[in-house]
């Protein structure tokens, strides 16, 4: 594990913490993008360049833009930030923190366990990813495809509407 990993990991942890603690949802989303980018760097360092590129293209580049798009449409003003401030009281942190402490203890235990040294990092090239997707994991791909298809059909159903006629002259020609 070189310094590159530790820098990327530190950025990932820090930005994820910022995602949780920001009151302004847009700033939180931007930190989430940074978190995705640092995770992409970690993927790249550990021999998964294809996954790294997809992480940036799909998560940071498409899904996050869509979420930001919807947040923009909701037009949240400063009052949402103050609402958020009211909701995020210290009492709320107790439960999640306890759960995290349990996980932390477990993680420390795993790190302290004497383990076999990790093998050399093997780079998984795009071809290998494609072969495994359409080889052993083809069922998962098909299922994901069906799920997406259902989403598309649903979106089509919600978005379908009759052509609106906005002018009375055009209305007449449309009836004929």
């Amino acid at each position: 594990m070189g310094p590159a990993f530790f820098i990327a990991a530190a950025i990932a942890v820090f930005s994820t913490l910022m995602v949780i603690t920001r009151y302004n949802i847009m700033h939180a989303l931007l930190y989430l993008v940074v978190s995705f980018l640092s995770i992409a760097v970690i993927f790249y360092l550990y021999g998964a360049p294809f996954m790294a590129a997809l992480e940036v293209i799909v998560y940071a580049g498409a899904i996050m833009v869509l979420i930001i798009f919807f947040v923009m449409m909701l037009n949240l003003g400063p009052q949402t930030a103050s609402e958020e401030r009211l909701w995020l009281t210290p009492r709320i942190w107790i439960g999640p923190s306890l759960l995290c402490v349990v996980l932390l203890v477990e993680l420390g235990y795993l790190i302290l366990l004497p383990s076999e040294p990790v093998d050399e990092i093997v780079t998984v090239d795009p071809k290998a990813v494609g072969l495994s997707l359409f080889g052993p994991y083809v069922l998962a791909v098909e299922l994901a495809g069906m799920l997406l298809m259902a989403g598309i059909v649903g979106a089509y159903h919600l978005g379908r509407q009759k052509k609106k006629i906005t002018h009375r002259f055009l209305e007449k020609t449309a009836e004929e």
Partner: protein
Amino acid sequence: MQQAVNYWWIIGGVLFVLLNTAAGLIWLERRMLALWQDRYGPNRAGPFGLFIVLADTIKLFFKEDWIPPFADKIVFVFAPAVVVASVLMSFAVIPFGPNVLVADFNIGLLFFLAMSSIGVYSVVLGGWASNNKYSLLGAMRGASQMISYEVFMGLALMGVVLLSGTFNLREIVEAQRGMWYIIPQFLGFVIFLIAGVAETHRLPFDIPEAESELVAGFHAEYSGMKFGMFFIGEYLGITLVSSMIVTLYFGGWLGPAFLPGVVWFILKTFVFISLFILLRASMPRPRYDQLMEYGWKVLFPLSLLNLLATAAIILILK
């Protein structure tokens, strides 16, 4: 040691040429637009009016740099930097010549796509942080336009990947020694060109800024060098898409041996930059819904068909 020095030379050289190209394009665009519209354009300062670049730059630097009090300050300042940074990062993977290449990435093409999807943020965040109705509308148009056209862009590129069998741009250029990919991938080229225009939100697809409807769209509140960053980012984007077209479909630096590879690359790229300017001079702007409909109902099926046909032909020939 020698290699490391060369490396820095290449990085410095690429940056120098790119930033100067982006500035020079201001002059080129104004002059060419003028010539196509039967006027002279800027022809007073210096030879052929070239010093207009200097005047424009000085003007941009000395304009008041104003952040509106109602804007989200951090995001407002951050947004223009994103576009320039992401475009400059993409140039790292483009092979300008046989050995003139900053990073020989084995996922170069994907890196280009990733950076262009990061570039969307500058439009979205710039428009949102301005806290202005027109900017917000521009940003929303920009987001949906760029996300949609990215899909066809990626799908159109997959034809090239199928033919060459690699994501590495240098190897893609090498694979075109026999035949440029413009011939087997003509449909892919057309789709990539259209998507490239939409991705750089240039005219005729400058719907995010559409000055006749939205004042100046997502950068309505920007002034001074912050506007300058959007401006330079746009020209850099044109250069990037042109050089990607050259790399992927027109054999990159390949060409008859009487000129070095870099010169061929620059010449070919220049042709496509001029095409971008000609598009601006000659095409009307479509309506927003027309643009989206055209993308999803025409370009999307076409790019899927292109992918299918290419794959089938490759399978048959094997």
